[in-house]
């Protein structure tokens, strides 16, 4: 059991660069971050500031060039690929800007993807009714009770994003990562989606790490950090005295 104030996720001196032909672009120069259990943290930044990259590194989808990411006190870099996959499956949930649903599966099947990956065929069969009940509850709660057997391709953007939230919550993740979850939606639908995330945090104490370029959305979080020039700052903080070149020629 993790105490509420104990950091569940911690990034220390994280650096990440991308090669583009002969040039190398340093996206994250020195990022330190600590997320407590039950906290709703928003990372704000302009397009191309590296906020999605940071989210991917925090969520064990990508690796930092240097620095460490600790989840629950464990250095993610020291874990095997299989162990990182297991953490992504059982401890983390992801909501992406472009929903990222599997077109071959219907709403219910997309929602149940995480337990399908977690359990063997026999294990899943044994828990099918329990898992279906859980998925149905989540979908009903998200207003998709009538859409469970529908193909995801016939849903609206807002509905698809709610399916993605249901999928992310299916395995009761410790941390929910949301990457511009409203970026592809109109203002009203975006507000509804943010309402869902806020409710989750408020009512169930869900730990959420949200990245967005929209300051008004970021303000709904407990804590807002700004990613600027490859570093995280509190809003209003002055930029670092260190020179911050955007391109690192190697």
């Amino acid at each position: 059991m993790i105490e509420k104030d104990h950091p569940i996720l911690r990034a220390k001196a994280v650096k990440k660069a991308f090669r583009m032909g002969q040039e190398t672009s340093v996206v994250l120069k020195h990022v330190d971050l600590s997320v407590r259990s039950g906290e709703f943290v928003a990372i704000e930044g302009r397009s191309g500031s590296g906020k999605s990259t940071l989210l991917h590194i925090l969520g064990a989808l990508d690796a930092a060039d240097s620095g460490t990411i600790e989840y629950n006190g464990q250095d993610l870099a020291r874990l095997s690929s299989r162990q990182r996959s297991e953490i992504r499956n059982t401890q983390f949930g992801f909501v992406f800007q472009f929903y990222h649903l599997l077109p071959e599966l219907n709403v219910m099947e997309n929602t149940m993807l995480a337990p399908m990956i977690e359990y063997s065929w026999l294990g899943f069969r044994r828990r099918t009714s329990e898992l279906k009940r859980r998925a149905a509850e989540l979908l009903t709660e998200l207003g998709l009770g009538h859409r469970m057997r529908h193909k995801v391709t016939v849903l609206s953007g807002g509905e698809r994003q709610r399916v993605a939230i249901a999928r992310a919550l299916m395995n009761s993740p410790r941390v929910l990562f949301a990457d511009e979850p409203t970026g592809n939606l109109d203002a009203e639908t975006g507000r509804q989606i943010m309402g869902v995330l806020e409710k989750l945090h408020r009512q169930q104490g869900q730990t959420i790490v949200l990245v967005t370029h929209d300051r008004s959305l970021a303000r709904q979080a407990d804590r807002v950090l700004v990613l600027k020039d490859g570093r995280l700052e509190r809003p209003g903080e002055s930029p670092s005295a260190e020179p911050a070149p955007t391109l690192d020629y190697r």
Partner: protein
Amino acid sequence: MYKLHLILKYLRRRYIAWWSLLAVSLCTTMVLVVISVMGGWLNMFEHSFQGLTGDIVVESVTLSGFPYYQEMIDKMRQQPGIEAAVPSIYTFGIINIGNLKTAGVQVLGIPIEQIGKVNRFPQSLYRQYNQYVEQAKETKDPQERQKLMEEAAEHAAHPSFKLPLPADDYRKNSDLGKVRTDPSTFPGMIAGSAILEIRRDSTGRTVGRDPYKYKIPVKLTTIAIHPGEIGVNLSEKSEAVYWIVDDSHTGLWQYDNNFVYVPFDELQKDLQMTAAPVRNIETGQDIEEPARTSELHVRVREGYDLQQAKQQVQDVVTSVMQEHLGQSSVFYPPPEVQTWREKQRVWIDAIQNEKLLTVILFGIISLVAIFLVFCIFYMIVIEKTRDIGIIKSVGATSSGVAGIFLGYGLAIGLVGSLLGLLTSYLIVHNINELHALLGELFHVQIWNPEVYLFDKIPNTMSWRDIAVIVPIAIISSVLGALLPALRAARMHPVDSLRWE
């Protein structure tokens, strides 16, 4: 769980993969049909040849035959590996069937009451075996069927050259004006079915077997060939009249179209191969020249090693020939001893090689299927790049992702090869009907019995072939999916999610 679920979804929804399924199915069908027909052809060859000769054949190297055969038979019977030995005389002749047809034929003189001990010749006869079997197949009454099968077995156990019709029917024949002998005493002849124009029509039905054929006199002309003589004396030709008493359908075109069978004693007499006194010109002494035969057909005891039995036969032949060396007025070259397979090795080896070559060729063509599976799977992996990222972001491992595509390949292989098996089964089992249909529609005859020696295309499949080909098809499909699966496994989740 997700692997199986996605495989089944992809199998149903990704229509492009159906092309690889079709390719696997077609290749399986192609190889199975070819291997079944070629293998069946080889089996028919082996079965038919073995059915027409003994397990071991002692064969004269000249048409004049070899002597002391009865002594050889007696000694062979005492050998542990030998069950029976029967002589036969082989020569060439001309037949005239009631002035309706004249043809050059190969003549086999057989002691018909014994021939069943060494081969399956009696089972090739229509009147004395197959007509009962055919009737038994048609009847629905089990008791009647049993009775007919017993009758068939009884006839096959005691085949004969006896006339099938009452003697008066033969006496009344107007074609025998110049013949003084009572026609009902003429010996019987069994003719190859194709010589009598008995054949299968396009629907597979036997046509041309009419009762009048048993009332037609057949004149057989043969010429005696004496041992040690360098020429043939044409004045020693023999013209004997026979009645057709039965027809033989071995299934082997070269036999059914060329062979007539007559009583061993009759042919031996006509060819002057019976024992006869001759005078030694040098000594002036009268000696008896022994009776001769052309071949001995030897049956090996069940389960006994064929090569060992052959050695026993060879020893008997050598010892008998040695024993009588110098006792005859002429020198007889020792007959050749061969197993049935050695005797037909030219044919069997050729067919075996042809089968192997065809299978290799079609196997190479099947590589195209692997390449097609590879291309299609590669396309699917590229198309599904983002899905791979999604699955990995939800916790799937690289091996799990590879498993989806390998399993997909396996499913394509399984379904494709089973469809191929079903299609090939339907084709092979109806191949003669399909061939007849092709003949009717397009007037083409692919399977010419004069070339392939059998009038029926083999229509059975071997479980052994299926057990080899189907797993190869499945493995090929998995191999085709291997590289795309590895590529999918190596995909970085973030790169995959950003794929456009």
